[in-house]
């Protein structure tokens, strides 16, 4: 039987449990804010409203990735390697929402 092998890893802080529950309540609250805003802004139709919802989604994504997926405690290079490509995706999404609006004009 192999003995306990050496693993490359970054350290986890001792108050991890606390951080997990804090993150849960933040996500819970943000979801409620999302739904609240949806009903408050029902009669507004502007691209800004969509960017607001996407921004809130990104804030939630930040908390999930940083704490739940342990990204906050990883090496800088791993973080860059995952986060930079996703920035281009956000750019594409916003671009295509605007582009869709123009397509609607010529439909």
């Amino acid at each position, binding site marked *: *039987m*192999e*003995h*306990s*092998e*050496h*693993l*490359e*890893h*970054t*350290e*986890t802080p001792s108050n*991890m*449990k606390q951080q*997990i*529950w804090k*993150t*849960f309540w933040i*996500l*819970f609250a943000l*979801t409620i804010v*999302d*739904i609240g805003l*949806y*009903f408050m802004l*029902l*009669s507004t*139709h502007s691209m800004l409203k*969509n960017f607001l*919802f*996407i921004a*809130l*989604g990104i804030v939630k*994504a930040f908390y*999930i*990735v940083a*704490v*739940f*997926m*342990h990204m906050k405690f*990883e*090496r800088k*290079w*791993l973080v860059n*390697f*995952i986060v930079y*490509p*996703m920035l281009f*995706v956000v750019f*594409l*999404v916003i671009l*295509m*929402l*605007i*582009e*869709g*609006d123009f*397509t*609607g004009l010529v*439909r």
Partner: protein
Amino acid sequence: MANSTTLTTGKQNIWGGGKSPFSVSYGKLMMWIFLLSDAFTFSSLLTAYGFIRYSFPSSQPNEIVKPMSHVSDQFVEEMQHTGLFSTEHWPLPELVFNHFPFLHGIHLPLFFVSLMTFVLIFSSVTMVLAVEAGHRMAKKEVANYMVLTILGGAAFLGCQAWEWTQFITEGATLHGNPFGPTAFAALFFIVTGFHGFHVFSGVVLNVIIYINVLAGTYEKRGHYEMVEKVGLYWHFVDLVWVFVFTFFYLI
């Protein structure tokens, strides 16, 4: 647990070879790369949704149906008469997704999907607690949290099956629906179906991990890293749902 010696070498050239520049194990790095590529797949689906959604005009605001009010069995037909459901514009999510199990006939806009969101976030929390227990080599705790995570995933899948059934019963198919443009239901089925398949795979992986935890596989190995790797996948599924929720129900 083995002390990590890689942290003390931070000042030296990390790309010089002989040590891991990312300071994560091979398996974890590969999981991150897989998740990045999977994120691209989901992004392409959501980008397509956003594009098609905005190539149609938005619906006029709903001033007819109030939350908690009674709705008849002919709700969809009534909405078509009022012009709120038409193939000319995108339907309002609050009028399409307004059902809740056991509360038939009441207009409860977006209540059910919010519940689904909370279920998935909560199962993500139990998963990360299992990972945390794994760091302490607490086998029993890991097993208990894994059970909760599996139950959360199964509950979410059950909710989704119910929502799909409701949607199909009202006449939604891949090539037409009574709510709005054809693409509306088609996109709904494809994107939530693809996400649901990911949740299903996640539940299967979680069950495998759970059996291995009970069998003591990771205790013999000396670490619970496999729980972390599957955990990364499970959180990713939660992360994608955050955006599916934003795009389909809010935008």
